[in-house]
């Protein structure tokens, strides 16, 4: 209870940290948030050219470029949330060493900054989906719900990674190394059933879809925006359960390890 009161008391601090970081990112930049769209667009372009013209469409998806773009921006949110949170406690070491406040505020602020960027990009992509598909499905109304769930999931992972990295400096490089292959085994530029060999080996598709905790989050957002359909009860239960579990465990672990942070950062 006293922890909750501490959070409530420092709500404005959280607000300030998010604003401060966003403004710092935009300072002196003419295009602002648009820059965050450039990287996913370049990747989208590269994968589109690669899989449409070089490899002659191994993955049969209509409007492949848009399909890839949505996957990439969702993945990019997760990846940036985790990698920026990893070093966040060290980056804000001066605050941690000299003041008393809930330490969760720091990684939570970095993840929230990524959320703001992610949502801004989704708002820009919305009209593109409308133009390409000619209409938007009502299921897009569920988008905030699935975005909130991937936010909770990413926040849980971020809390774990941030507090572990403060104690063990090998964590951030390990996370960086793990994220790259993780990107390729996540169904982002292909659908799980299109993975090489998936038609012969029926275990591949469920493995790709369910064993990788990020996959259902990416898929659910793409279902409501790109396919304009309900992602299904199983996937929805998975993303809710995963978010609750990961955020719960992450929060508890962070609490347990937060005591010595002023000494180790």
């Amino acid at each position, binding site marked *: 209870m006293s922890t909750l009161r501490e959070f409530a008391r420092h709500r404005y601090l959280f607000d300030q940290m998010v604003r*401060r970081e966003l403004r710092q990112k935009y300072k002196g930049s003419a295009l602002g948030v648009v820059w965050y769209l450039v990287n996913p667009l370049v990747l989208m372009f590269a994968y589109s050219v690669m899989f449409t013209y070089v490899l002659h469409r191994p993955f049969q998806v209509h409007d492949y470029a848009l399909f890839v773009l949505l996957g990439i921006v969702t993945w990019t949110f997760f990846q940036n949330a985790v990698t920026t949170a990893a070093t966040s406690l060290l980056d804000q070491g001066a605050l941690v060493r*000299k*003041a008393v406040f809930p330490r969760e505020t720091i990684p939570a602020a970095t993840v929230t900054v990524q959320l703001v960027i992610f949502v801004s990009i989704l708002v820009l992509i919305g009209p593109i989906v409308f133009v390409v598909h000619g209409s938007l499905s009502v299921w897009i109304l569920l988008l905030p719900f699935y975005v909130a769930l991937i936010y909770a999931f990413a926040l849980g992972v971020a809390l774990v990674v941030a507090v572990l990295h403060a*104690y063990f400096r090998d964590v951030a490089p390990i996370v960086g190394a793990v994220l790259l292959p993780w990107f390729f085994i996540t169904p982002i530029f292909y659908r799980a059933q299109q993975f090489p060999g998936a038609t012969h080996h029926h275990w591949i598709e469920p493995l790709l879809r369910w064993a990788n905790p990020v996959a259902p989050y990416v898929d659910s957002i793409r279902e409501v925006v790109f396919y304009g359909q309900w992602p299904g009860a199983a996937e929805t239960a998975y993303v809710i359960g995963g978010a609750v579990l990961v955020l719960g465990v992450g929060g508890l672990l962070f609490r347990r390890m937060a005591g010595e942070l002023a000494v180790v950062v």
Partner: protein
Amino acid sequence: MSSETLRPGEIVLERAVRTFTVRADRGRTLKELMIGRRDPDGPPPVKALNDVSLRIEPGETVGIIGRNGAGKSSTLRVLAGIIPLQSGSVRCEGRIVSLLEVGAGFGRDFSGRENIFLSCALHGLGRTEIEDRIDAIIEFSELGHFIDVPVRTYSSGMFVRLGFAITAHLDADILLLDEVLAVGDEAFQLKCERHVMAKVHDGATLVLVSHDADLVERTCERIVVLDGGAVVFDGPAATGLPFYHELMGTATPAEAIP
């Protein structure tokens, strides 16, 4: 831990023990975690607080002095709740306001005004509470139009002005100051001292760490001398300062104990 309720401004430190591992890199590596112990090559742990007990009443003015590495700053950080104890207990009642390092957490690219918001938020203040006192803070800091300039352009004196002006307007029950009044010009220093004494007069508790014997003598009625993480003197300033000078080997004939 006893369960008596403390009055606002009261501090009770019981048998506090805190050691630090002194290492070049402060984090541990996974290798050490996996082999289950720390590298034995490093220097031995330092006992910053070695069985320290203090009871400070509301409205008391306490100066903590001692040589470098005696545990003064660690004591303040323990009282502020920044670092936990390994054994013993610490209890402080009321709003604790600490100024442990001037400009800690100031965003260098942000203006003084923006940093006031962040610093106050760090102490748990909300937007309206900050807006209510921002004019008073700016006036106290005497920074004038520099308040809207990025703080990276500030001189160290200006940093102190801003840092102290913020601290001064946080309605502290317990004020923890670490060697910060010494910076800044004489006029501002005097203004800060007067402000602190006014707060004390209103019932706030002051704990001050300083090497400036004159400052401690002016502001503190009680002196705690730390040496090697232990309390070696705890009593009125009149006898505490001569004790300190003798400990330091700097006793002048006028100050020496007869």
